């Protein structure tokens, strides 16, 4: 009997190893579905359309109130203005989300810079969301006007932030091209050194050919250096964008022109490296 009991326990122990399943104390974190740029943009365009309609209604009711000055017209004007202000805040929030989605997809941007911009965008989103929620607590047209002025002052921070983000996105593209150009040039230089060191017959070039190749490498280096200088200038301008008295649009356009010059230098360097490849592939 005792032996049977031991044997049965042993069998039970063996089977438990195969049938046991994992048990978690906590549920695994669910994947957060990130909003893509296209989704955010569609939402933004929808809110913008609603705002335009609400604004048209506001303009009508406002003109009626100013003309008749009746209680009914005042109430209608209040309702229309309230709706318009709410829609305006929705547009502001959705636009900030568009910027956030676009920044998420941006290339060549440092993570620290991205995080800093995300933090600032979220700050503005929270402010406008609270502002919209507080609009319903207003009691008169004057309250609405003062709340609107608060949003107007806040928008003076959002406008330069938006252009800063757009500048950073453009800068990221150029940084990406610059990085890839550097890698290509380093690889090419290493390859040329290998060819120079190769003593096998037919596997090395003449000194004249190496001079030509070195000349191309020197020119490519020069173009890349000029490109980096332009990027530094653009970066300095981006830093001064927020808080500058100058119009954000003008500064943004200046940044883009600098980055375009940098792009052209990278393109020229690319052409020079193509010439090097051509020289390497052609027999003397």
């Amino acid at each position: 009997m005792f032996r049977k009991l031991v044997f049965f326990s042993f069998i039970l122990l063996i089977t438990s190893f195969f049938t046991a399943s994992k048990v978690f104390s906590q549920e695994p974190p669910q994947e957060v579905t990130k909003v893509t740029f296209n989704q955010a943009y569609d939402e933004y365009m929808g809110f913008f359309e609603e705002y335009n309609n609400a604004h048209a209604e506001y303009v009508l009711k406002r003109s009626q109130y100013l003309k008749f000055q009746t209680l009914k017209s005042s109430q209608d004007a209040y309702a229309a203005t309230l709706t318009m202000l709410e829609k305006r805040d929705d547009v502001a929030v959705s636009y900030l989300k568009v910027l956030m989605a676009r920044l998420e997809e941006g290339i060549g941007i440092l993570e620290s810079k991205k995080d800093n911009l995300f933090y600032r965008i979220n700050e503005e989103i929270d402010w406008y969301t609270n502002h919209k929620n507080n609009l319903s607590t207003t009691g008169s047209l004057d309250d609405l006007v003062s709340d609107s002025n608060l949003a107007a002052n806040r928008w003076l921070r959002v406008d330069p932030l938006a252009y800063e983000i757009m500048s950073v996105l453009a800068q990221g593209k150029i940084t990406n091209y610059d990085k890839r150009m550097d890698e290509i040039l380093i690889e090419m230089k290493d390859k040329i050194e290998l060819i120079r060191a190769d003593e096998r017959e037919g596997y090395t070039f003449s000194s004249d050919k190496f001079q030509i190749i070195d000349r191309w490498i020197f020119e490519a280096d020069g173009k890349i250096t000029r490109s980096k200088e332009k990027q530094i200038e653009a970066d300095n301008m981006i830093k001064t964008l927020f808080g500058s008295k100058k119009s954000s649009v003008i500064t943004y356009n200046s940044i883009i022109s600098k980055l375009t010059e940098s792009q052209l230098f990278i393109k020229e360097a690319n052409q020079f490296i193509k010439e090097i490849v051509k020289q390497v592939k052609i027999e003397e």
Partner: protein
Amino acid sequence: MAEKKLDILKEGKKWVFSLIGKPLADNSGVKVKVNSSQETQEPTEDSVANDIKMFKDFAKKSFDMTKKATIPFAKKGASSVTDTARVVSTSVDNKFIKNLVRLFVISFFVIILIFITIYLFKMLGQENNPVQIVGVSPTPVTFSPYKPSVYAEDLEILVLEEKINILEKEIMGVDIKEGGINPPKLDYNIKF
């Protein structure tokens, strides 16, 4: 002279009134008798019959006159037709025309023969030199304008070349300026 004119005028008036059936008022003082209906009908019927008779006479006279005038011309036309027929028949019989027609037919057949011979010669020429049909060869021959070095097929060089080409395409095709995400124009100027 004046009396004659008056008479002519009277006659004309009489005729017009007889046409329209009105009794003529006689200025000479002769009393116009007012007859019965039968008597009034008879003059009107006579005037209509007279008119019809006058018209018939006129038509017959005019027909006769035109007949007399046109008969010589018709005879002349008939004679001219016979004359031309005679001329044509004589020309057909003419040797010159016959020869001309003969020459035309011969030249026509000669031209046809020439075309046939040219076509045959062309066909024969094609048989001797058959036309080479140019098609797509299974292995395309790449045209290399230069003599390649030992590094032309080097893997590292080819990878580098590929990277350069990709980067070039991106630089050429991409617009660094962000389009479509400029800040929206919102109305912040709210006043009452």
